């Protein structure tokens, strides 16, 4: 087997993962503060952060726990928020599926919105990379992201809020995702998929448990794939 150097890919991943600090640090800290104020002890707060690593679902679970929802309802609602992870998993399989079982297990643990979006942008845009270079890039993105999430949550839980109230830090999430999505809109099919996603999520906003997002995403994937198929059929002689 040809040996490919993975070091540049790993370092590129680290570099591309660094700006997520702007999102991860405040959100981890806010989760730590809010969860502690809601009555969780430090071990429970860190249990969430180590075992779940999914900010949106953690906040949903916490919100429902504050409302004393039944345990099964808390689990169902917060897991529904994370169903998109299965879509990410499927989208990464063609790129990383060739790795050993153990490595796929580690990649799965580190699969978040940020690592997925950065990795898929890279895999689709740059020149084709070997399997282990793709893995190195993914691990590189995760390197500044995941430890910062742990540390920020711990700091929030242990030290309390140092973030002045009223700052629009919630908006770090849309900004980082816009920065990742816009470069993905390379073809008409990608643009149509994004538009269908936006329109459908607004039309389905009345559905509970984030189901609107899942249905919108499925419709958008179908719209993108169908546009691609028709354009290919048109281009063919």
């Amino acid at each position, binding site marked *: 087997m040809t040996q490919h150097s993975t070091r540049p890919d790993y370092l590129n991943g680290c570099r591309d993962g660094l*700006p997520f600090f702007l999102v991860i640090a405040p959100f981890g800290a806010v989760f730590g503060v809010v969860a502690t104020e809601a009555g969780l002890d430090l071990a429970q707060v860190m249990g969430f952060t180590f075992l779940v690593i999914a900010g949106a679902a953690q906040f949903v679970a916490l919100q429902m726990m504050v409302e004393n929802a039944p345990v099964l309802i808390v*689990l169902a609602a917060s897991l529904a928020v994370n169903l998109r992870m299965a879509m990410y998993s*499927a989208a990464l399989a063609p790129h990383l599926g060739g790795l050993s079982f153990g490595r796929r297990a580690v990649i799965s643990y580190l699969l978040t919105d940020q690592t997925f979006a950065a990795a898929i942008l890279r895999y689709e845009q740059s020149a084709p990379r070997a399997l282990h270079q793709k893995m190195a890039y993914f691990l590189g993105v995760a390197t500044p992201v995941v430890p910062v999430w742990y540390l920020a949550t711990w700091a929030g839980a242990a030290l309390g809020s140092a973030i002045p109230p009223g*700052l629009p830090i*919630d908006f770090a999430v849309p900004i980082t995702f*816009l920065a990742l*999505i816009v470069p993905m809109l390379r073809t008409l099919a990608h643009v149509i998929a994004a538009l269908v996603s936006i329109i459908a999520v607004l039309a389905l906003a009345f559905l509970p448990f984030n189901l609107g997002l899942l249905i919108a995403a499925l419709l958008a994937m179908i719209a993108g794939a169908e546009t691609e198929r028709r354009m290919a059929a048109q281009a063919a002689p």
Partner: protein
Amino acid sequence: MSYSALQIWVIILGLGLGTYLLRFSFLGIIGNRPLPEWVLRHLRYTAVAVMPGLITPLILFPQATGGAMDPVRLGAALATIAISLWTRNVTLTIFGGAAVLFALHFGLG
């Protein structure tokens, strides 16, 4: 909150395990088995299908303002898109978007 410590740990472990299984699902099961072309064609649009839907409500109806449209956040979102198209660089876009967000926040606030 009126849960026992055991119930809280059931939630934490259940959500952790469930989330992990969702992440591992296709990556773990499919591995490198070849997928039919129509499946791959759909998967190519996963990111542009999920992410815009994920952030659209956050941009238009932010929870922090009680769901009311906010000129600071809308302006920052539009500026972020413009910076992305102009610089074609993800890192510059993130920092540029954050700079516009805080400039508008302190300028308009």
